[in-house]
Structure formats: C-alpha cells, structure tokens
C-alpha cells in the first residue's frame, strides 16, 4: 500500500501560518553571533595577499594547492571494522571497488582499551565497533588480498598504544610479503590529549602516551617516511562538547606540543613536514567551511612565526574529515541523508584532503552496506554531477566567509594564548581545565536544545510518524555479535597464545621491557614483538610494567606467568 504517512491526520481541520517555523537562532552552532548581512565594510582590515592569498600560497587559507581538486580529489575514506576480520575484508574490497581509496582501520572497544579478548572486561564490548585485532594474524586475515602499496591506510583508534601497535602490524605484514615498509603510506591519530580527554583510555598514562607518541613519530620519520605517525584530532573533543574554536585551537595546540617535543629530540618542523590533523564536519554549514580555512591559516602562521619553518610543506596543514556522528538521529533516519550530504559539501567547500562520511544508519548501529554506498555516491554526485570541485575555494571572497574566517582565526589565536599561559596543552589536560571547558559547552548545547533554541528536525521539532523507508533504514543496521561468537574469539586467542614459539617471543618481551625502562625508542621492539606474535594486551602490559604500574590496566588480573617468567632476569 502506498498511502502517505500523514494521511491519518488529514481529516482534521488545517490552519496555516506563513511565519510559523521561522529561524530560532542568531548565532552559529558554536555561539558566534552573526549579523543578517555582510558587506565590504566587514573586510576593511583584511588584506588579500597577506590574509587570504591564492590557493597554494601562504597562509593557505584557500587551500594547500593552486589547482586544488582539479588535479587531485580528496581521499574518500571510511572506518571499516565489523565483528570479524573476514566480513571486514569483504567490505573493504567492495568499497574499494566503489571508489574508496583511503582505508581507515579500527578495532573493537576492548582492543582500544589495551586488552585482549581473553580479558574478563572484554566480553561486553568484544567485537563491537570493530574487529578484535589482538595480534598480527588477525590483521593478515583482515587485509588478505588487499593492496599494501599505493594505498593510504589510517589507524583511527582512540589511543596511542593502538597507533604504535597497528603501524607495527602493517610494517610486519609488508616485511613478510617482501615489500618495503618505506612505501607504507598513511597516518595514525595517536593523539595523547584526545586519548584521555575524550576516552579516558585505561591502557596507558599520559606520561607513557606522550613519550610513546614521540617514539613512534621519530621512528616513522626515519623508517616509514610516508606514514604520518600523529594526526592531532579535533573530531572527538568536538563531539564531546567543544566548540569549533576550541576544536581547532586544541588541535593546533597538540600539533605545537608535538613539534616542541620533536625539537627536544633534535629535529625540526622542516624535518617533520606537513601536519596532518582530523577535524569534525558539523551541521553548521558555513561555520564548518570556515573552520577548515581558518585552521590552515593559523597553523601556517604558527609554523612560520613560532617554529621558523623554512619549507612550504612544514607550513601546510592537511585536513582529514570525519563527519559528525553525533548530528545523526535515530528518529526519521532518512533525514540523516540530508545532514551527511551537507557535511560532505561543507568539507569539499572548505578544501579538505580526505573525507570519512558518517552513515545515515549510524545512530542505530554500525553502518550497513547500502548506507556506505550512499556516502560514496554522494561524493561522486558532488564531484561529477554538481561540479563542485571544479574551481578551487569557490567561496573565497564572500564577505561573510572571509569575515568569519578572520573571526575564527582571532578567537583561535586567543585560545592558543590562553593554553600557553596555562602551561601548554598537557598541563590543561592534567588540571582538568579542558574537560571543564568541554562540559560547560556540552551543558550549554543541552540547555539550548531543551529551550528550543537549537532545533533538531524529527527530534525536538518537526516530529512525525515514520513511514516504510525510515523503518527499513532502522531495521537494516548491523547487529552486534552474539555471545557464542564472542566465546569462539576467546577460545581462538587462548589457542593462539598457547601455540606461539616462546623461545622467539620471550626475548621480545625482555627487550620491550628494557627499552621502556631505559627510555630507548620502543618502536623497534614493538615491531619485533608483533612479528613474534606479541598481542596488543601484552604490549600494553609490558610497557606498564616498565613504568612500575600493574600489567593489567583494569587491575582485575595478575601479570601472566609466562610474562613474569621471561622478565625474571631483568632487574
């Protein structure tokens, strides 16, 4: 039956008010008050060559390259991580065939907490949000028959331990396949601030995270130069409540801390090259576009003025996008198609370098195949039918956009000055100042929603019954694995651990422990460990032991006997 949904209501008398449902806001999503109109007077203090400049020229406000997308489109990426490596492998391949060219890797939640599937705390979220990638053998299954060269990989995990461990898995697989890890291309998030601020990640302390992040950065610069080890992340702080200003300011502050730590190791920003970051594409269209233009400009200035960068590359910030999962709603999920489309469009108009678009069914479960295809096709439509990427920064010169970019830059620089005054981003994390800022804005947004000052269609306004299309979207979302499947995984990992060659593994445990204690770069001992079968849980635990804290981040289990045995000789 093809009746319309609202037919039940049309028997009632209908009245119409022309001015009903008008605007409720006079500020952007991040509370920046805006006027109804902008004109040349608003740009009086802006100098085109100095503040805006052509795409490809300092300060890169309009984009990193002179021809932008004409020569090379943004990378189309997704996190693909289902319950099993086999499903994930199949999905990756089908998305690659349909235009995905940036492969984002993730793991289930326990792996991202630094524990293996046989840990009692793993059960409830095992294989949820991704594969239980406890060791290299799972990675081999997950990436079977997929290209390792000429492709971009990203590790999107929440914490530093995953970043170093899964980079090691990729290196180990390349070595094993006779390929050169020097050709490994991509990036990892590896952001010590996000790991704690947003995730309170239990695996390691911030002290360990900061040191290992820099070990990893240093190692990759020398050994896998096409891999950007750290990509400061604004997506998750923003989803946690930060405003757009605090999001980009926080990202630049983390980037500053990385370069400062790098200088302490005797390297410069020019050695490091371009800074890769991940940002959130939120629902506020113009604010989102502007945010991307502003952060490129702010970073270019920081690189040049603070770190005395000499090369253009070192002044460039490459932006990877994750569109806002938080903006997607469970009610009338078809509407999420409009949200995602606008977010992708704002990313393209903001000149970003890669886009990972959320899926329309994401408020219900892990993305289904159709929802992913919709994402890719939306990007193809934007490219080939709407012709959006034909001209670089097509909104450049708009009175509103340029005013807002300039406003963003100033506010962001003020925020950075405040972070500096408070002793830097790590101090702001440890003191709880960042968490408080995030919470305050989260509460403010919540109040606005309750008071009707922030409307969400289908949620706190324009509700209505859902018809068959919406219901179909809700019903096709990915279902989490059963308890039987989880039990199989536990048995698999126990068998895996039993069957390893401990004569090869034990020395790896010892070396990782000793490198951790002595302050040597642990990257190589992690790679060697991965090759010998060391799991993520073991790596996390041994590094913890090296810092004199319990092997188990949850303090539920003792150090495994075989680990204790092998470390007996170490002092």
């Amino acid at each position, binding site marked *: 039956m093809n009746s319309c949904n609202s037919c039940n209501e049309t028997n009632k008398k209908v009245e119409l008010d022309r001015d009903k449902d008008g605007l409720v806001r006079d500020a952007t999503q991040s509370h920046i008050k805006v006027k109804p109109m902008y004109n040349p007077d608003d740009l009086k203090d802006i100098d085109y060559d100095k503040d805006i400049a052509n795409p490809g020229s300092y300060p890169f406000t309009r984009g990193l390259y002179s021809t932008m997308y004409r020569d090379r489109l943004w990378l189309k990426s997704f996190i693909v991580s289902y319950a099993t490596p086999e499903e994930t492998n199949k999905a990756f391949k089908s998305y690659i065939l349909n235009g995905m060219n940036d492969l984002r890797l993730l793991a289930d939640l326990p792996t991202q907490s630094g524990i293996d599937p046989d840990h009692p705390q*793993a059960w409830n979220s095992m294989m949820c949000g991704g594969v239980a990638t406890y060791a290299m053998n799972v990675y081999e299954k997950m990436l079977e028959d997929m290209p390792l060269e000429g492709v971009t990989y990203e590790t999107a995990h929440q914490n530093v331990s995953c970043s170093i461990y899964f980079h090691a898995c990729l290196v180990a697989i390349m070595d094993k396949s006779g390929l050169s890890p020097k050709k490994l291309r991509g990036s990892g998030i590896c952001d010590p601030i996000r790991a704690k601020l947003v995730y*309170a990640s239990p695996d390691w302390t911030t002290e360990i995270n900061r040191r290992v992040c820099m070990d990893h950065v240093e190692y990759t610069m020398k050994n896998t130069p096409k891999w950007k080890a750290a990509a400061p992340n604004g997506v998750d702080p923003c989803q946690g409540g930060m405003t757009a200003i605090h999001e980009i300011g926080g990202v630049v502050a983390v980037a500053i801390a990385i370069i400062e730590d790098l200088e302490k190791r005797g390297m410069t920003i020019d050695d490091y090259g371009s800074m890769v970051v991940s940002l959130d594409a939120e629902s506020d269209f113009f604010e989102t576009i502007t945010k991307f233009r502003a952060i490129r400009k702010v970073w270019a200035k920081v690189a040049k003025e603070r770190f005395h960068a000499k090369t253009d590359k070192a002044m460039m910030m490459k932006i990877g996008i994750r569109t806002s999962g938080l903006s997607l709603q469970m009610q009338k999920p078809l509407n999420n198609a409009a949200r995602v489309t606008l977010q992708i469009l704002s990313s393209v108009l903001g000149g970003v370098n890669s886009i990972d678009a959320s899926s329309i069914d994401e*408020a219900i479960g892990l993305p289904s195949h159709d929802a992913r295809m919709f994402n890719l096709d939306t990007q193809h439509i934007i490219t080939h039918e709407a012709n959006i990427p034909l001209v670089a920064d097509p909104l450049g010169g708009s009175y509103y956009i340029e005013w807002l970019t300039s406003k963003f830059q100033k506010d962001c620089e003020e925020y950075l000055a405040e972070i500096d005054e408070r002793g830097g981003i790590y101090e702001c994390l440890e003191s709880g100042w960042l968490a408080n800022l995030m919470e305050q804005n*989260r509460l403010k947004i*919540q109040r606005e929603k309750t008071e009707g000052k922030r409307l969400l269609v289908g949620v706190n306004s324009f509700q209505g019954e859902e018809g068959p299309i919406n219901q179909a979207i809700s019903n096709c979302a990915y279902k*989490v694995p059963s308890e039987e499947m989880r039990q199989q995984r536990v048995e698999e990992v126990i068998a895996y651990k039993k069957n390893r060659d401990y004569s090869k593994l034990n020395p790896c445990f010892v070396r990782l422990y000793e490198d951790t204690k002595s302050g040597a770069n642990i990257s190589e001992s992690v790679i060697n460990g991965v090759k010998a079968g060391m799991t993520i849980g073991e790596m996390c635990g041994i590094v913890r032991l090296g810092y004199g804290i319990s092997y188990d981040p949850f303090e539920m289990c003792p150090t495994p006997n075989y680990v204790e045995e092998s470390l007996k000789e170490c002092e």
Partner: protein
Amino acid sequence: MSRKTKVVIGKVGCDIHERGALTMLNVLRDAGMEVVYTGRYQTEEGVANVAVSEDADVLAISDLSGSLVIICKKVINELKRLNAADIKVIAGGLMTKDDIEELTAMGVVASFGTGSSFNDSVVFIEKLMVEKEKE
C-alpha cells in the same frame, strides 16, 4: 514523597561513548533527582553493587556499543542475586527494535534509544516512582 528519587547511571565494559550518560546525569539532577554516575569501564557486578549500596530506585545502563541486551541480562541477574530486584533497570543508548523487545522481555522497564527526548526519561521515572509509592 519521603525522599528524593535516586538514580545510578552505569556504564559497563569498554564502551567509550559517554555523552549520553553525562547528559542524563545533568537532566535528571535538574529534574530534582539524586544521581550517581559510575564512570566508564565498570563491570555488571560493579554497577549492580553501586545501585544496591546507594539504595537506588533506578539503575540506568548506558551503552553505545550495541551490547545492551548482553549487559542488562547480567545486571538484572546480579540484582536478583543481591536480593535487589526492586531496583528498576532502564536502558539507554544504541539499540535496534529487536533489542528493545529482548530488553523488555528480560525485565528492563524502559529503553531509550539515541535521540530520545530527555523529558521522556524524566517523565517515565517520575511515573515509575508514583507507582512504586502506591505499591
């Protein structure tokens, strides 16, 4: 009413998504309830214990990993084991229609998916307390 309604919000396992739990913490407090949040990375036994020792009226389980059915089953069993089956369990977060049916069948008194109105949860708990008074 003799005392404020007391709600424990619990998160179990390694699910990192916390915004819903934190939001409900404030929403329920603003509605005049006493609310305790366990924080992330807890166990079923842990959150059930908190609910019992806090003498809670309601234990609200938040999860966005998709595992509410698995978690709530264990939580309810644990409450029974502790002779605290009178503590009502509410689920919030990521759930499919099938999940909601399963949750209801096992005794979860209400399930609020992502994007549910804050007010609905408040009204539901208030009604629940009125019924409890009558009992």
